[in-house]
């Protein structure tokens, strides 16, 4: 039976790919398709809440909108640097590839830092979830505290959607770090974990969220020590697909969550 599928006199032992590309890339595309359904479900849940709630809040002042716009610019620029890294790897320019990958990681880190600041500010102003610890010494009768009480779906969908995206960006930076620096990236990751853990107060969600970096360091160490390899242009291209997807998802979160909830004075 197998002879009918792969003839004995075939020039290669493998049939040509159905999709005209290598299996690693097809695997990443399949993962991205499934992940887009995860984000699709979260975006639809947000939209459902918005349609079905008459007094849906529009609490974002221009400061938040400016911050989110800068975050968007960071992500778009990171996509440009990522595609230049892929190009450099395809042209076999390892130095340029490394520099563009580091630039992409820098832009991604900038996005995470700005997003973290935004979250911290919103939580301090009262937009919170029941599972977040109370911020000591902060005013809880503000506009955002009112939003959390009257329309709890807003905070749930906002933190759920943007938190899931922030997690994806963080893991994307780790992924690029592994492709760019391999084992040298592990101590850097551990330092980032320690800084993020110790520099954030115990009531901040990032104090515990920082442990994602520790988990990532453990997983990456296992992979890098058990299966050491030289990451080639196909690995950079596949990592790029993931990174562009993270950027793509933000193109929908930014207008739906921020721009449609802007406070127009």
């Amino acid at each position, binding site marked *: 039976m197998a002879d009918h599928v792969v003839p004995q006199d075939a020039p290669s032992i493998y049939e040509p790919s159905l999709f005209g*590309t290598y299996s690693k890339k*097809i695997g990443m595309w399949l993962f991205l398709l499934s992940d*887009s359904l995860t984000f699709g479900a979260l975006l639809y849940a947000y939209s459902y809440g918005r349609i*079905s709630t008459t007094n849906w809040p529009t609490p974002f002042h221009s400061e938040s909108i400016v911050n989110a716009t800068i975050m968007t610019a960071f992500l*778009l620029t990171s996509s440009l640097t990522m595609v230049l890294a892929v190009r450099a790897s395809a*042209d076999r320019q390892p130095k340029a590839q490394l520099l563009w990958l580091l630039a992409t990681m820098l832009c991604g880190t900038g996005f995470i830092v700005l997003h973290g600041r935004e979250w911290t500010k919103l939580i301090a102003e009262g937009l919170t979830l029941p599972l977040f610890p109370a911020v000591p010494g902060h005013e809880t009768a503000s506009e955002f505290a009112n939003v959390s009480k009257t329309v709890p779906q807003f905070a749930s969908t906002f933190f759920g959607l943007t938190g899931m995206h922030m997690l994806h960006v963080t893991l994307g930076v780790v992924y690029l770090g592994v492709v760019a620096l391999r084992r040298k990236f592990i101590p850097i990751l551990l330092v980032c974990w320690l800084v993020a853990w110790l520099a954030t107060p115990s009531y901040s969600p990032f104090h515990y969220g920082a442990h994602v970096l520790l988990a990532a360091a453990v997983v990456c160490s296992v992979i890098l020590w058990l299966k050491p390899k030289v990451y080639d242009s*196909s690995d950079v291209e596949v990592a790029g697909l993931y990174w562009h997807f993270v950027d793509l998802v933000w193109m929908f979160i930014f207008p739906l969550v921020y721009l449609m909830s802007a406070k127009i004075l």
Partner: protein
Amino acid sequence: MDPVQIAIAERVRVQHQHHTKPQFFWVWGALLVMTAIEVYLTYQNMEPVRMLTILMGLSLIKAGLIIAYFMHLKFEVSRMKWLTMCALVTCLALMMIFFPDAVRILTMAVK
């Protein structure tokens, strides 16, 4: 690198010959300009449904540019393009089945 890795790296090099650096900068510029338009429209006090339509239209164009040029799908074989995009659009469209229920809650909510 083993021979398979070398062969794949060569395939990546050939596939990326379609791209030129100015093309990447044009796409990046277009994405930034569309983002600026979106932010500008936010402060024009438009009717929400109209604004949502324009914002989602711009977001779809931006997504198309990212998928086509940055994710390289424009230069893949047509079988890959059609299968991935049709599967994605169908699944996302099916999720819209929940929206009539959201409208029902709005119009028939318990007072």
